[in-house]
Structure formats: structure tokens, C-alpha cells
């Protein structure tokens, strides 16, 4: 993966740049010692690393504005960072950039239970947003699996999803407004604690823009009353095709589960060895969770069982208690840990139309055989968001390259069947060079125009999202 050559003029001015940052921030908020900036050299995509010029950790919107004004005046690129949990390299620094981390901005500014919103600083972690409102019976719906660590700022940047999107949507559907600082230091409020905003939907374009347009410092988030209850059912099948058909039939029957998780044989076996959740020995496994009142749960689980039985499941295990629910989820929730035990892996997140599921799983198997690699599939089947895990050995020469090449082939396959490169992780640097697979030149150009308007000097989060050749002229400008 290529990155632009760092600007030697910026590297040469490091002392002046750091002095300018210290002028607008308290002493403990500026990190310039190379031994300390190394802690920020990568995010959760650890294959790519590069220590930044400096790191700043502001505490307020005003401090963020001060940093951006200074960097804008000195023409220094800025890489915004939430908690650094991006799987796509969304917060990967460049050697000539200032990393702007919002991890110290964690305050709850207002809770409006009667108006069903919470106003937080954007560095607050996803799970602690729910933590702040659950005492009153509310929760924040998007639940990426990194929710213990990931920041709302990063969730907004990547438009993060989670396991419960089928019912509750992703970040953009739960975001009411933001306070954002533009690269020139201008502070804007877009939206707010009400349900719609006049004029163009700038909030819609900001959410998911991967730090290309501004630095989000505060957010108004929609909160929802917690459901009365939730219960899963585990269903095993002897083929991926039949499991895929069952997913489609459940949806067609008018049931709207909060989650439909799918695991194939390699994933089931890995999880079983690791977590011993008692999963059946089968080709494909579904975990379908429904929620609501006791009556609603019974009715929906009854319907789902009826549909599943038509497909001759090898096992159908309806949870009857919190304990049984926990056991059903145990394997699935430990899937990534289980894979980690087996070696190195790359986790993809292309989305496909649900109808293409059997075809795509078959093709992934064939592609993996061609590369001599193994792929386990764990994914959100209700919304078609795949998570193929490509297993490889980082110590074996050439294995990472082969795994990345297989990953690119799988993502091309996702686009070919009518899907997309990324359903919830974002493009970052990881999928940047594949954008041309999904978008024609005019489609990309239209996206670049938005960047031109918000960040005309192209200083924010450089070399992400867009293929370098598509942005060369603009970055040099």
C-alpha cells in the first residue's frame, strides 16, 4: 500500500509547528517526543504503521479549533483519531501529520430523556453512552463489536454498525446533530436535538466521511427505551444454501429480528474449540434474536421455528432463559478471539444482497482454495454484511500478500453481485485502492467535490478513502 512521500518542508519545521500547538493547548496536551508519538503509529489495522510528527489531545471544542487554525495556517495535515480501533486504517498517521485525538473529550453534556437524546463530547466511548442513560431505561442502539473501546467520534466518522442494525439502523440513523470544527478552525453546529434540519442534509454527508470533512467534537445522539426482553434461537443446517434460504424466508414472513447471525463450518468449529458453547456439528448455523414483550417474543420465535422446520434443520434450540441465551451467544461473541487463537487473520466486511449469499459463500470457498488459504465466515445475515475472516501466517513469507490478494478478490465479488466494499468498517487506507471497482470516475469525482468544499486545501486525513491517483492533482494544489 502506497502513501504519499512526507513533505520535507513540514518535517523540517517540526519545532515551529510544535511551538504553535503548545501556544493553543495546555502543556500536557501536546506530545512531540518520538518515543511517545509511537503509541499513535497505527490503529487496529496494525499491518500499517507510521509515527506522526506530533499528537495533540485537546479537551474542548475551542482547543480543537485552536489546533486546526494553527495547522491550517502552517499547512500541516491533520489525522483525526477517536479510540484508534479502526480496522481499515482510518486513523493511520503520515510522518508529516499532527494526530488530533479526542480521547480526553468524554463528557456527557446533557441528557434529555423526555426528548430522547443525549448530548456528548465525541471522545466518549460507545458503551459508556448507553452507560450514561441506562439508569432511566434507555440505550444507544448502534453496537459495533468494539463498543467497549471505540469512540462516538470514530463511530460517526465510519458510520459504524453492529449486530442490531436490521432493526435499529446504523450510526447515521441514530445521529441527530454534531458540533464540528472545519480545517480552518470554524466551529459549526449541524442539526441538534430535534428530528430534522432545514436545507441540504450536511449531517448525512458528514456521517461516514472518515475524517475527510472536519473534526466532530460533540454529538446529539438519539436514545431509545430498552426493550422489555430479548431471546435468541439457534438453528443448525447441513448446507449454507439452506441456511441462506431460511434467512430470506424469515424476512419474507414479516418477522423483523433484531439480529440474524450466520456462521459457516470453519467458523463454527473454531468457536467450538475455543469457547465450547455446545454448538451442533453442522455446515451452517443461524442465531436469530427477537425482542419485545414476552408475548411478542413467543409469537416471533414460534413463527421462526415453523419456518426453520420446513428446511429440515439439524438442530433448533430456542433459548428459555438468560443462561441459555448467554450460551447461544457465547460462541458467536468469541468468534474473533477464536480466530486469533488459530493464527493471523484479515477481517473483511463487504455487503451483498441477501439473495446472493449461497453463491458468494461457494465462490469464496473456491477463491480461497485457489490461494491455498482458509476462510471462515461469521456475519450479519439479515442485512447482508459479510465478515469473511482470511486466515494466514504472518511469519510465512508471502502469506500476507496472498491473503490481501484473496481479500481484494472477495471484495470484487461482493461488488459484482450488487453489493459494496464495506458495510461498516469504512474504506480507510485498506480499501482505498479498490474504490474504482465500485465507483466509476464521475461517481468518485462527485465525492471529491464534497471534500473540496469542506477542506479546500486537502489537509484532513490525507491519503484515505480515495485512490491516490484520483486525488493527486488536488493534493498537490
Amino acid at each position, binding site marked *: 500500500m502506497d502513501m504519499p512521500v512526507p513533505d520535507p518542508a513540514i518535517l523540517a519545521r517540526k519545532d515551529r509547528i510544535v511551538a504553535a500547538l503548545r501556544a493553543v493547548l495546555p502543556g500536557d496536551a501536546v506530545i512531540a517526543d518520538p518515543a511517545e508519538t509511537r503509541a499513535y503509529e497505527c490503529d487496529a489495522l496494525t499491518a500499517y504503521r507510521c509515527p506522526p510528527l506530533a499528537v495533540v489531545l485537546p479537551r474542548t471544542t475551542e482547543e480543537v479549533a485552536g489546533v486546526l487554525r494553527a495547522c491550517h495556517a502552517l499547512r500541516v495535515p491533520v489525522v483525526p483519531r477517536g479510540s484508534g480501533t479502526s480496522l481499515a486504517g482510518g486513523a493511520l498517521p503520515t510522518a508529516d501529520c499532527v494526530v488530533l485525538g479526542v480521547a480526553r473529550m468524554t463528557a456527557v453534556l446533557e441528557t434529555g430523556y423526555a426528548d430522547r437524546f443525549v448530548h456528548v463530547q465525541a471522545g466518549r466511548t460507545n458503551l459508556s453512552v448507553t452507560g450514561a442513560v441506562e439508569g432511566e431505561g434507555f440505550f444507544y442502539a448502534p453496537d459495533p463489536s468494539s463498543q467497549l473501546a471505540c469512540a462516538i467520534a470514530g463511530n460517526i466518522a465510519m458510520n459504524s454498525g453492529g449486530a442490531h442494525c436490521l432493526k435499529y439502523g446504523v450510526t447515521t440513523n441514530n445521529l441527530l446533530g454534531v458540533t464540528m470544527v472545519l480545517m480552518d478552525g470554524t466551529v459549526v453546529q449541524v442539526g441538534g436535538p430535534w428530528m430534522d434540519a432545514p436545507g*441540504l442534509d*450536511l449531517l448525512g454527508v458528514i456521517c461516514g466521511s472518515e475524517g475527510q470533512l472536519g473534526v466532530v467534537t460533540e454529538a446529539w445522539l438519539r436514545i431509545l427505551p430498552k426493550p422489555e426482553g430479548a431471546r435468541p434461537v439457534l438453528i443448525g443446517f447441513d448446507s449454507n444454501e439452506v441456511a441462506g434460504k431460511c434467512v430470506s424466508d424469515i424476512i419474507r414472513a414479516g418477522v423483523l429480528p433484531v439480529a440474524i447471525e450466520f456462521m459457516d463450518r470453519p467458523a463454527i468449529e473454531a468457536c467450538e474449540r475455543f469457547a465450547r458453547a455446545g454448538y451442533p456439528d453442522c455446515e451452517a448455523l443461524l442465531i436469530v434474536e427477537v425482542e419485545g414483550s414476552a408475548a411478542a417474543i413467543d409469537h416471533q420465535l414460534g413463527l421462526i421455528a415453523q419456518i426453520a422446520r420446513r428446511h429440515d434443520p439439524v438442530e433448533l434450540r430456542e433459548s428459555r432463559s438468560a443462561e441459555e441465551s448467554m450460551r447461544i451467544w457465547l460462541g458467536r461473541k468469541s468468534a474473533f478471539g477464536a480466530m486469533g487463537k488459530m493464527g493471523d487473520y484479515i477481517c473483511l466486511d463487504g455487503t451483498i444482497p441477501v439473495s446472493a449469499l449461497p453463491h458468494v459463500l461457494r465462490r469464496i470457498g473456491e477463491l480461497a482454495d485457489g490461494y491455498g488459504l482458509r476462510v471462515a465466515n461469521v456475519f450479519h445475515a439479515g442485512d447482508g454484511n459479510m465478515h469473511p475472516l482470511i486466515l494466514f501466517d504472518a511469519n510465512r513469507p508471502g502469506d500476507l500478500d496472498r491473503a490481501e490478494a484473496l481479500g481484494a478478490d472477495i471484495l470484487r465479488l461482493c461488488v459484482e453481485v450488487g453489493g459494496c466494499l464495506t458495510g461498516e468498517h469504512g474504506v480507510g487506507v485498506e480499501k482505498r485502492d479498490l474504490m474504482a471497482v465500485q465507483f466509476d470516475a464521475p461517481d468518485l469525482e462527485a465525492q471529491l467535490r464534497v471534500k473540496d468544499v469542506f477542506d479546500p486545501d486537502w489537509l484532513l486525513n490525507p491519503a484515505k478513502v480515495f485512490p491516490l491517483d484520483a486525488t493527486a492533482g488536488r493534493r498537490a494544489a
Partner: protein
Amino acid sequence: MPPERRPASEDALAQILREAREPVAVRGGGTRGAPAGGAVLDTTALTGIRLHEPGALTIVAAAGTPLAEVEAALAAHHQHLAFEPPRTGPGSTIGGVVAANASGPRRVVAGACRDSLIGVRFVDGAGTVVKNGGRVMKNVTGIDLTKLMAGSRGALGVLTEVAFKVLPRPETRATVTLRGLDDTRAVAAMAAALGSPFEVTGAAHGPDGTHLRIEGFAGSVADRAERLAHVLAPFGTADVTEGEGPWPAIRDLDGFADAPGDLWRLSVRPSAAPGAVARAGALAHRMDWGGGRVWLVMPPGTDLRARLGAVPGHATRVRRTEADGIADLPPEVPALAALSAGLRARFDPRGILNPGPTTA
């Protein structure tokens, strides 16, 4: 004035825009507000449902397809557009719904039109075809122009195709109604209902009462409606009725949208709605979205914003009696106005698409 144009394909539409020398007024069914000045560019020949996959909860349609056709196709599979678009007449097109980001009572739980919209194709002001999003409901690939197009009223491009995530249509519904509540008590009752775990899908208040909707499978609806009525006991004795109830009328502003006077729409946090209404001195008003959206009929020529003062939120005049120098759209702060103007200038460099303020 150049003749009205009604292209039958995206290519033909793109050619018209490439060759256009004068402003165009983009129009679907013409049922959601008057287009700006210019030669009419009619999208109603771009029709047809391109894909409907009930098992994947997705539908894709050409922008000029009648809303009624889309809704009928979905209804045949017991599905619907979750955002409950208001019906504005038989000519209403699905592209017009998107251009206006038109959303009904269920918006309070299911989101607005823009939340169901998962993909678009459009032709920008230079005549270039652009696609964004797609036909899958989880997609974070690149900048989200799909949401940007929703509610943009043709200012950035002419929609040619739109794709939606759809949802199962609830099997049954019931309405829990409280009567005789003033605005403050009504908003408090609606907040209690929307904060309950009973999955309330509509919360509206008007002269005929305060209505709360419960939807889903038959047994569960009756159970939840009864328990909701119990929770609302401090606000009075509630009636529970089955069936469609008042919701189509609430959705379409029946008997209210045409009332004499200027029609205003107020978007505020619900708890601020009663105070705002008290200050407005309206001829009549209705609340939807638990009080988050307030419709007001004002005496012609009243500057509602001046009356409201510093209420956080915004007020839009949807219909005026006559030109009176009062802006229909709420003022944008300069930094946001500059961003919006920048986007318009880049997507429509010659300024030919629906010139004039962007309405929403």
C-alpha cells in the same frame, strides 16, 4: 420560455442538462410544492420498478415511478416504506418523495425518508450521471451522497433512480387515545409513551385528542396497547381502538393543510413545543413526532420566527398566502450557508437547477 421537456431515459435527461442554456425547474408529480422558475423538466416518463427483492427487504425504482405503484408492489408482499410518506395526490412520484425527504408519523421510530434511502442515481447540473450507495442496507463505501440528495429539492441534481430498505408491514395496529389534554400535558403523555418499551410508532396531538399507535402481530398489539393505556393512566382514561385509526389523516394533514392562512412547520425538541405554540398565537396547530414537529396555521404575513424568539430549532413556512418579504426558509448561519452554496456551485456550476433557495 423553452418548451417543457419530459425525457424517457436517463441518457436523454443527461443530454438535456448538458445542452441546457437556461434554468430548469425539475418536477415530478408537482404535488410537493411549486418548482422554481425556468423551463419545466418533467421526470414522470422515467418509470418502472427495477428490482424488488422481498427476501432482502429492498426495492429500486426509477424516480418518476408513481408513489402509489411502489406502495402497491410492496403491499403485495406485506411490506411498506417505513417512513410513511404523506400522500399528496395521484401524481406523486417516488423521486419527489425523496427530493422532499417527505416523512410521516412513523418517522419518530423508523427515521425519515433519508434513513430508508440506500442508493441513488442522478444527473448533476453539468449533465453527468452519478451513482452513490446501492441496493444493500449496510454500505459505508465513500462519501454518502445518497443522504445529501434526500431533501435537496433538485438543487444538486435530477434523481433518476432511488433504492430503499423496506420493512414488513405490521399485521395489525391499534390506537390509544387520550382526550382533553392541553399541549403541555399532551407532550408529557407522548414522552411517557415514547419512552416506554411498548414500541409506539406514532405520537400525535390535535383537537380530537392525543393519539399513540402500537403496531405488530395481533396478540402482541392488544397486549401492549392495554399496558400502554395503563402507564398513561395519570393522564386520564384512554380509549383503545383497532384499525387504521386517525393516522392516514395525521400523515396527510387532512383538513388542515388547506386551511386559510400561512402554513408553517416547526422542528423543535418536543418539550419546547408547548411554549413555542403558546408564543406563536396560531389560528390552529397540530403536533406530530411526540411534539417534535408542529404544524401551525398563522394569520397571513405573520413572521412566526419573530414571535418565537430564541426557541432552539427552526421554523419553515410551507405555504404562504402572498409574497410578503418574510423568508420561507429559516436563516442558515453563514458558515453552513457557505458550505451549502459551495456544494451547489460544484454540483451545478452553471446554476441552472431549480435556482432559488433550497427548500426542505
